[in-house]
């Protein structure tokens, strides 16, 4: 049975997983955050892991307590129940201790929030528009690069990358602080790239902003998916980002955005190629 096979395979994977590098997209049977490509995602991962240990501790504590209580105070072992119903010290303790834990948590949490949200001096801007159902990318800083539409590839063309791969990726330079302006032409969408630690809703009539900066040495193709319900093809408007070296980006811009060979538009459900 396929399921059984998959489970055994992934159990094996589970053991070696922490050792192998994550890709820039979801991993087969993956069970953790995607590998970080930006400082924000690095911080986000750190905070997630920190909070994870806390909540794991709480869960284990409750579990162990419950197990012990169920064992020790079962009717068999403890035929007569005590009648204690108050213990001020205890009640104060279980109010104060969680507060302390939360205070410990809230400090790094706020730090991450402000790091993520406060736009630094950015070096470049891109504009993203969510349409039903594809993404449109524009480079306001580079007027010679025409805005273009990025459509999902069908299964035949995308192969293993179906629902991630597009016909035209957003091209950005590495090691550059990039401001992303996000809006929508009709329904809500959400521009999300897990490896970058960004997710921002595309809202008609409103321009949201976020930013990212891909760490040096992290050139490659990254994938994301629309993350706000937008209708029939919500599942089918992936985000593909190609992170290239600064030099390659310069020449790409000089070429008027030239490794997008064919511009494709999505018309009535079928793909139209235009050269």
């Amino acid at each position, binding site marked *: 049975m396929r399921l059984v096979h998959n489970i055994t395979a992934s159990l094996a994977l589970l053991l070696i997983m922490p050792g192998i590098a994550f890709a820039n997209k979801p991993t087969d049977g993956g069970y953790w955050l995607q590998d970080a490509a930006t400082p924000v995602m690095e911080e986000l991962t750190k905070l997630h892991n920190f909070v994870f240990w806390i909540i794991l501790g709480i869960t284990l504590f409750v579990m162990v307590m419950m197990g012990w209580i169920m064992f020790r105070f079962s009717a068999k072992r403890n035929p007569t129940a005590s009648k204690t119903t108050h213990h001020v010290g205890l009640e104060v303790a279980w109010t104060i201790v969680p507060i302390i834990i939360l205070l410990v948590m809230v400090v790094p949490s706020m730090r991450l929030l402000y790091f993520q949200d406060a736009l630094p001096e950015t070096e470049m801007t891109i*504009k993203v528009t969510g349409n039903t159902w594809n993404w449109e990318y524009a480079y*306001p800083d580079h007027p010679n690069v025409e805005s273009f539409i990025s459509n999902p590839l069908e299964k035949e063309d995308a192969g293993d990358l179906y629902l991630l791969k597009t016909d035209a990726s957003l091209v950005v330079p590495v090691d550059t602080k990039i401001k992303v302006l996000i*809006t929508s032409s009709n329904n809500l969408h959400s521009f999300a790239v897990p490896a970058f630690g960004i997710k921002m809703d595309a809202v008609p*009539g*409103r*321009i949201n902003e976020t930013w990212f900066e891909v760490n040096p040495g992290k050139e490659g193709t990254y994938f994301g998916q629309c993350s706000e319900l937008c209708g029939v093809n919500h599942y089918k408007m992936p985000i593909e980002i190609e992170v290239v070296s600064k030099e390659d980006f310069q020449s790409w811009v000089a070429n008027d955005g030239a490794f997008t060979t064919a511009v494709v538009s999505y018309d009535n459900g079928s793909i139209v190629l235009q050269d």
Partner: protein
Amino acid sequence: MAGHAVEHDYHLIPPSPWPFLSGCAALVWGLGMVTFFAGLVDRTGSSPMAEWFFANGLDTLKSSLTGDGSLSGGWIILLVGCLFAAYVMYGWWKDVAAESAAGDHTPVVDIGLRYGMIMFIMQEAMFFVGWFWMFFELGLFHKVRATWNPDILENAAGYADSMAPGVTSVDAWHLPLMNTLILLLSGTTVTWAHHALMHNDRKGAKWGLFLTIALGIIFTWLQLIEYAELFHLRESGHEAWIGNNAYGSAFFMATGFHGFHVLIGTIFLFVCWVRLLKGGFKPEKHFGFEAAAWYWHFVDVVWLFLFAFVYIIFAMNGVAH
């Protein structure tokens, strides 16, 4: 232990058809609402009968308002639903009044009714919180929103227009001021009626209540005049009409729902008046009347908020030309 003798003062009610019939009425009404406002079938002319029942009724209304009158139907289910609901309410409240007269409303039941009415008014207040929230958001933050990169925003112009500048809002110091005074006055007349009733001055009570109802009707009348004026101004696009911009939407829905509540309150008072004329209510026991009065005061307070914020403050903001 005690057999069947009931030794408490609560009011156990025998089975009653009204709740079930209310459900039926709600179903018809709901179907009517969807039909009237959205329409279940298109007007293609292929099956006139079905279209008369199930086509969009709002279009009918519009076509008769603009005087062309080419469309018909679409309103019958809603009308039946409303009448059905009115019939059920009539039957239900008649039962309640009869029970009250029969002495079923013991002191503890009376307190329960008071709790119930207070809770009902609380939920009405929260309903208006929703509308005011919308209004404050539009009034306070639209300029902030409009400054968000309007150069890249295709519909930035429409956005910036949300209400100011360009929206001429209703002048607070004409009809609205008049209406404020009317409602405040009606608050005093209903209190007069209440005091008169408590002192067994039934004639005074009748007059006080009558005046309150009359003022309520005048209020509604003036409100309709105001709407009619706005209707005639709506073409200019910037005027505060319901479908022109979000300001108009918030204005009409908030004042409209308030007006609807005034109507309910007026009917409520009217029912009390009829009961009073028929010899109902006693100086020491007249909760039906008090509930109507509470409701009326609530409606009054909502109006004061509307007047202060929707008419005066936002109008000051909005009367830019």
